[in-house]
């Protein structure tokens, strides 16, 4: 029992110590042990009781029994006195001589083993298994802890760590340093304030309110949370300033300025146009607008068909409304009054005309690719099986659409023709050039022809009810306009068509007959083109013809076409070799437009040569050169110095013989062979100019790796004699710029942040560019 108590007190002391130390693991264990005491006490009591019961039987342990009894008695007494001896014992301070680490009670029965403590531990379920295992391992492990390192060693390790830390810290500056080393220009001091007048807040900073009025004002300001000293901005303003950086603000302002300028331009333009009184101008303008709209719709069809459909529907709706209401026809009151006035008043007449025009515009049916496609689809759905040519269908439809009358104006045909031109060129590669040359001249004629044909057709329509022929002719015009280079059969038809146009109304009947006769031939041709050609895309969808006859130039057109007309009526369809050859020769014969340059060249060259020869007839350049070369060679040769002349104190005069010693002539060694010895057309001077060589670089200077690199430094001049002011400024920018009278402080941490920001901005801008 005493044993147990001692143990308990030890544990309590340990608990205190461990609390002080704050070691978690030991604390846990101790806590779990601390929870035990009540249990222990009970056990003790039980043990005591058991012992008491067992006492009766045992006689050899009297002393022990006495002791126990005494204890019990003491306990009872203490319980009576209301004192708790045990508690007192536990709360006593740890002895001074007791070490924190090794519990060594002087009066205890020996050392406390870890196993003693662990005995109770196994019984308690609250201790986690992990802790238990750890403790067991600890018990099994008999190893001693290594002795601490020597002071030198620890210091070295510490130094190593500290150095590593410092080195990494310093390495932050790497990017800044390399950037500065590479920079084109360095500006010092680093954190320069922007030039210009200083903001007022900085000037006012040192100022204080002194007079009562000022103080009152300041009191008011401070009451309303208005700043009055350093930053004159309110917090809200500051936030807004912070929200947008200077560059962004600049960009935004530029954008706004541009937008404003554009708006003002447009406004001015609109005002100007509005002022124009000419009705014709406005009419033209409206037309252009409408055309633009149509074009726009066409584009929309390509890009966004749904939106285009909507637009079209809108227009269709407007048309329907117009047709329903007949607002712009002569039925309105105003129109009727105008109709009365129209007899006498010019303006009223005009107004009426305008109104009618409006009506027509509104009620005009739109012809757009989308519509056409739909129509085609409808057509396809209606009569896909029958492979009848279009004109048959058209004929079935009945009288021609009256709206078509207004359609074949100058512009559409022109466009068609223009579209056709490149097509034709691509089809016949061989004849393309000539055709292009012809084209300019031919185009106007073509247009005239078309117009003529058009009016003739109208007349014809008025006369005849038989539409088949007319539609055939329409087809013909289209074919002629679109595809100038058709096959031979086509050409035949075209020649006929030309003859028709030239012949006018008289020849009409005859051509009609020819048409009827040729229909069998041409039906095949027509059947080839089931696709109705209305747009450029249609043209492109056409199968390319292998050969296309270039059209004749306008100057020589009259006779050959007539000849052809005579000959071709009986011609076979196949191509004969002879025929082709003759045709080719014909083409060559044709005088070309004066734009050609190559054909003129040989003659011109010859002429120039002759001219030069004539001009420099007297000069013999070659012999001059040779003479020059010989002279230079002679100059280079060592001179023979005549030493035989009489000197000072010698006899002179005629007939004197030079003395013997002077007869020897001095001859120097022959010079090395000239570099241009074997180059008859070149003179290479052997004289080296020493004064120049002084100024020349003889070996490649250090930083350069090759001559090209070095020479590239001297490629462009720097001075203002050769460069514009701006370039000069840019090129002669000094590397280091310092501000006069400004202290240059060492680089501060802010520079690092600024650099980071700059790098981030650069990368982001690069990324955005990439994404674009």
């Amino acid at each position, binding site marked *: 029992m005493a044993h147990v108590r001692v143990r308990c007190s030890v544990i309590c002391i340990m608990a205190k110590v461990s609390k002080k130390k704050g070691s978690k693991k030991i604390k846990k264990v101790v806590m779990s042990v601390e929870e035990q005491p009540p249990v222990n006490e009970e056990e003790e009591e039980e043990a005591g009781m058991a012992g008491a019961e067992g006492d009766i039987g045992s006689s050899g342990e009297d002393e022990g029994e006495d002791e126990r009894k005494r204890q019990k008695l003491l306990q009872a007494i203490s319980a009576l006195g209301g004192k708790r001896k045990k508690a007192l014992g536990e709360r006593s301070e740890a002895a001074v001589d007791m070490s924190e680490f090794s519990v060594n009670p002087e009066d205890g029965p020996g050392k406390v083993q870890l196993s003693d403590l662990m005995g109770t531990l196994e019984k308690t379920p609250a201790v986690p298994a992990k802790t238990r295992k750890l403790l067991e391992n600890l018990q099994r492990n008999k190893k001693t802890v290594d002795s601490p390192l020597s002071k030198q060693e620890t210091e*070295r390790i510490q130094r190593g760590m500290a150095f590593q830390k410092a080195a990494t810290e*310093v390495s932050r500056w790497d990017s800044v340093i390399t950037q500065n080393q590479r920079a084109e220009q360095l500006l010092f001091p680093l954190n320069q304030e922007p030039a210009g007048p200083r903001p007022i807040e900085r000037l006012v900073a040192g100022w204080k309110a002194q007079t009562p009025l000022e103080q009152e004002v300041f009191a008011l300001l401070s009451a309303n949370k208005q700043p009055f000293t350093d930053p004159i901005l309110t917090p809200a303003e500051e936030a807004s300033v912070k929200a947008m950086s200077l560059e962004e603000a600049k960009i935004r302002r530029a954008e706004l300025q541009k937008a404003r300028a554009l708006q003002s331009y447009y406004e001015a333009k609109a005002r100007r146009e509005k002022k124009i009184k000419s009705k014709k101008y406005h009419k033209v303008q409206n037309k252009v607008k409408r055309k633009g709209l149509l074009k726009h719709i066409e584009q929309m069809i390509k890009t966004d068909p749904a939106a285009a459909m909507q637009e079209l529907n809108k227009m269709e709706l407007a048309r329907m409304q117009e047709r329903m209401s007949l607002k712009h026809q002569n039925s309105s009151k105003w129109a009727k009054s105008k109709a009365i006035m129209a007899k006498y008043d010019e303006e009223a007449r005009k107004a009426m005309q305008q109104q009618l025009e409006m009506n027509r515009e509104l009620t005009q049916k739109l012809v757009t690719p989308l519509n056409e496609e739909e129509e085609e689809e409808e057509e396809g759905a209606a009569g896909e099986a029958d492979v009848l040519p279009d004109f048959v269908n058209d004929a079935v439809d009945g009288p021609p659409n009256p709206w078509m009358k207004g359609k074949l104006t100058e512009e559409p045909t022109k466009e068609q023709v223009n579209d056709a031109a490149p097509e034709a060129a691509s089809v016949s590669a061989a004849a393309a050039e000539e055709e292009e040359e012809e084209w300019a001249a031919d185009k106007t004629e073509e247009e005239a022809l078309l117009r003529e044909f058009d009016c003739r057709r109208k007349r014809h329509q008025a006369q005849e009810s038989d539409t088949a022929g007319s539609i055939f002719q329409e087809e013909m015009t289209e074919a002629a306009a679109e595809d100038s280079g058709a096959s031979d059969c086509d050409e035949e038809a075209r020649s006929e068509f030309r003859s028709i146009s030239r012949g006018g109304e008289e020849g009409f009947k005859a051509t009609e007959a020819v048409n009827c006769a040729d229909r069998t031939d041409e039906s095949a041709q027509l059947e080839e083109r089931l696709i109705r050609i209305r747009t450029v895309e249609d043209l492109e969808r056409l199968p390319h013809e292998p050969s296309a006859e270039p059209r004749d130039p306008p100057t020589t057109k009259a006779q050959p076409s007539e000849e052809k007309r005579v000959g071709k009526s009986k011609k076979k369809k196949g191509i004969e070799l002879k025929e082709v050859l003759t045709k080719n020769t014909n083409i060559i014969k044709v005088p070309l437009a004066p734009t050609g340059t190559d054909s003129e060249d040989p003659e011109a060259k010859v002429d120039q040569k002759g001219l030069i020869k004539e001009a420099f007839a007297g000069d013999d350049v070659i012999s001059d050169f040779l003479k020059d070369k010989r002279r230079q060679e002679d100059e280079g040769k060592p001179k023979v110095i005549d030493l035989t002349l009489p000197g000072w104190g010698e006899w002179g005069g005629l007939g004197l013989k030079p003395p013997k010693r002077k007869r020897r002539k001095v001859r120097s060694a022959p010079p090395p062979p000239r570099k241009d010895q074997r180059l008859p057309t070149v003179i290479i001077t052997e004289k080296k100019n020493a004064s120049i060589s002084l100024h020349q670089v003889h070996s490649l200077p250090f930083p350069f790796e090759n001559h090209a690199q070095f020479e590239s430094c001297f490629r462009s001049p*720097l001075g203002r004699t050769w460069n514009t002011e701006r370039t000069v400024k840019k090129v002669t920018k000094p590397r*280091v710029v310092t501000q006069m009278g400004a202290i240059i402080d060492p*680089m501060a941490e802010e520079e690092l942040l600024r650099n980071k920001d700059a790098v981030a901005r650069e990368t982001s801008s690069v990324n955005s560019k990439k994404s674009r």
Partner: protein
Amino acid sequence: MLKIPRNYDPSLHPFELSREYTRALNATKLERVFAKPFLSSLDGHRDGVNCLAKHTRSLSTLLSGSCDGVVKVWNLTKRECVRTLQAHEGFVRGMVVRYCGSSFFTIGDDKTIKQWNMEAPGYGEEEEPLNTILGKTVFTGLDHHQKKGVFATCGQQVDIWDEQRSTPIRSFSWGVDSFSSVRFNPVETELLGSCASDRSIVLYDMRESTPLKKVIMTMRTNTLCWNPMEAYFFTCANEDYNLYTYDMRYLEKPCKVHMDHVSAVLDVDYSPTGLEFVSASFDKTVRIFPKDAGHSREVYHTKRMQHVICIKWSADNKYILSGSDEMNIRLWKANAAEKLGVLAPREREAVNYSQKLKEKFQHYPQIKRIARHRHLPKNIYHQRNELRVMKEARRRKETNVRKHSKPGSVPVVSEKEKHVVSVVD
């Protein structure tokens, strides 16, 4: 001024290269003609000038301490002494102005650190230091932190002091040494470097309890100076006539060896732009080196200037101040041929243009010859030649030894590696 439209057609302005060459040649010649670097000498000390200090907030103020313990404050614009005080008994070993410019510290042979007010005392008042700290040993070097009220001294050990305390907040010692100078890193403000008499350079971090690293060289380093724009580079002035630029992360060998002096280099200071530094030598010359060049671009000397003990580059990158043995402080231009004062725009453009021309044609022999020409006093010239001969002889001998020994047994040691004995962690 009349504006004339120009035609820049190159055919109208032929021979551009030769014309520009002539211009460059003329510019180079003119530069040499106008190269008059010496501005003035400030006399007044009664003993050799031992230390100089720049004012941190005022360009026109200079402080100098002499070997008789007198500190003088100079006004550079007027070129006169504005204040004289007897700061110490014996040498004034070091002097530094506080980062705010309100006061300055001096150390002397009398084992004291004194803090002085920058403003002169009023009429009739005595010159008295704000603070005096009595140390146990002599202090030899002093530097102040860039942003905090902390300064460092060196003597038998390196001490970090708080301005408010009379004992050091930290002491570093590594073996038994005496240190000759200590310098704070102006960029990474917690780092320090010091030069010890055992031929070593030691680096410290103020926040750590131990020094960082030590490099031992063949000869003693007198002073070192950190680059104010590049955090990890410092240059040290060595007794072996050379200067060495180190990257503090790689102390195994210096990044650059700067040679030209013919005697021990006593002091070095970086230009505030961090692109050049100036060195003072026992050979009575001042030399300016580009930070990454092996040889100096400029040498300053006068007949009367004796051993130059201390040197400073002014904070606006325009002037150099040297204090020498013969009691004078001299004011030099950093660029010898530069015009002082405000330049008119056209003048500046002309200067820029000629500068670029000189750069462009710098490799041409005539231009190079003229641009590089400097006058040297006779003794320095001969000494230099002598050194050259010695070096050549040594080189020749080495090659001969290499030739006559087993291949690989005599390795080629680069000039950079030659001077480093070891690096101690």
